[in-house]
């Protein structure tokens, strides 16, 4: 398979790195910027413990390439199809059972912010800028942002961001709950890599996946269902660990 346009994937110390690679703006060419089969193939390896999404060069991403959307003007079905692919992709990323960090440097607008919102953790460099400017083009965030943003920042600030289209800096983003960690200027990737290593380096993949599944369940299941699943995951790990300790004693 040939890699999708303007996106690169590499693995460094068991961490997958997806780079939005179309500098300087790293515009997202189509909403479904990574075909799902690529994502599954990239992350299919049992050795990958986490994923970082970052931008090539100085910026994260200035957003979607709107030309592609406007080219389809008049054909609602083809626009819907494009947008649907983007929504499916971001849902898949959000549902991954390894941690996903958005390493946000400088510009993170529109579609770029949609991608960041689908990640589990958002690290922004102190010189990062965040915005949903779609409203200025008579559009709206169309890849799940209208759903994800209020969950993080509450409805009033979500309305303000999406209707105002104004830019936020990293510190204001953190105050709102949109940004989880602030990294030094232009150091978002390094900070993210360091955080990811601290979280995953000494952990077996099964522990990582069990925790991520339980956290996802807290979002999508009733508490009772989530707990049934969590105790099942716990007991499976406990059996493994009991076994491991036994064989260690014998050795």
């Amino acid at each position, binding site marked *: 398979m040939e890699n999708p346009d303007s996106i690169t994937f590499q693995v460094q110390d068991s961490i997958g790195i997806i780079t939005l690679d179309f500098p300087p703006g790293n515009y997202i060419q189509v909403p479904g910027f990574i075909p799902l089969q690529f994502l599954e193939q990239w992350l299919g390896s049992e050795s990958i413990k986490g994923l970082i999404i970052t931008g090539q060069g100085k910026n994260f991403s200035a957003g979607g390439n709107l030309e592609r959307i406007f080219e389809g003007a008049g054909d609602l079905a083809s626009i819907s199809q494009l947008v649907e692919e983007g929504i499916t992709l971001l849902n898949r990323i959000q549902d991954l059972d390894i941690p996903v960090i958005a390493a946000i440097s400088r510009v993170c607008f529109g579609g770029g912010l949609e991608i960041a919102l689908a990640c*589990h953790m958002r690290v922004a460099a102190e010189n990062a800028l965040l915005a949903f400017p779609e409203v200025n083009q008579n559009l709206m965030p169309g890849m799940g942002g209208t759903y994800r943003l209020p969950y993080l920042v509450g409805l009033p600030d979500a309305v303000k961001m999406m209707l105002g289209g104004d830019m936020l800096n990293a510190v204001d983003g953190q105050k709102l709950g949109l940004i989880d960690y602030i990294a030094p200027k232009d150091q978002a990737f390094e900070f993210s890599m360091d955080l990811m290593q601290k979280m*995953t380096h000494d952990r077996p993949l099964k522990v990582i996946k069990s925790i991520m599944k339980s956290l996802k369940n807290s979002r999508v299941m009733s*508490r009772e269902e989530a707990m049934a699943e969590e105790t099942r995951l716990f007991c499976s790990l406990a059996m493994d660990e009991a076994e491991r300790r036994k064989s260690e004693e014998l050795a």
Partner: protein
Amino acid sequence: MRTIQWTVEYGTGMLMLDQPPSNTMTMDFFREMKVIMDEITAGQDLKAVIIFGNGRHYSSGADISELLQHVDQQVMLENYRAFAQLEHLDIPVISAIRGVCLGSAFELALFSHFRICSTDAVLGLPESSFNLIPGIGGIQRVAKLAGMAKAIEITLRGNTFPAAEALAMGLVDIVVPKGQVLDLAITFARVLPWNTDKVNRQFYLHKYLNQLHATAS
């Protein structure tokens, strides 16, 4: 009861984790916890419940080696339900946290409605460093209180953190010197209205707890 001392003082249920020095949570503890919870929910006339540890510590959490010898999903679920019952009580449940509060003990505290914490307390969910996960609902509670990112970080890293950090993450409600923790919990229990479901918890938290803290110090 061998692992818990349960007394009622002026209408407040005092639940003391009593296996000093670190009040480790054994199988016996969970069994006794269920008995007490059934007693409370059966309608014992109480105004509040305060959970605290005997001595310097709240509790270091579950006895892992004992637990690994009796892995049983049904028992785990029952343990969770006993903790969750606390949260569903219509009287305030306050954890007074001093010293270490780790793993299952932190999970117990997370099911309380209020967490009053000493400046020198050490908290965390270190289960992942034993190749396990928090199994009594801590993951769910931390995600709700601190958000997804912090929940991922503390459960995967399994690191311990001081009270001030827990406060910044929203995992405890107030931090005071250790000598004041239990007194503050008791005073707070007495001023709280009967049924916290009917009031805005945040309102009482800010209004009374901070006021009490200001007068206490």
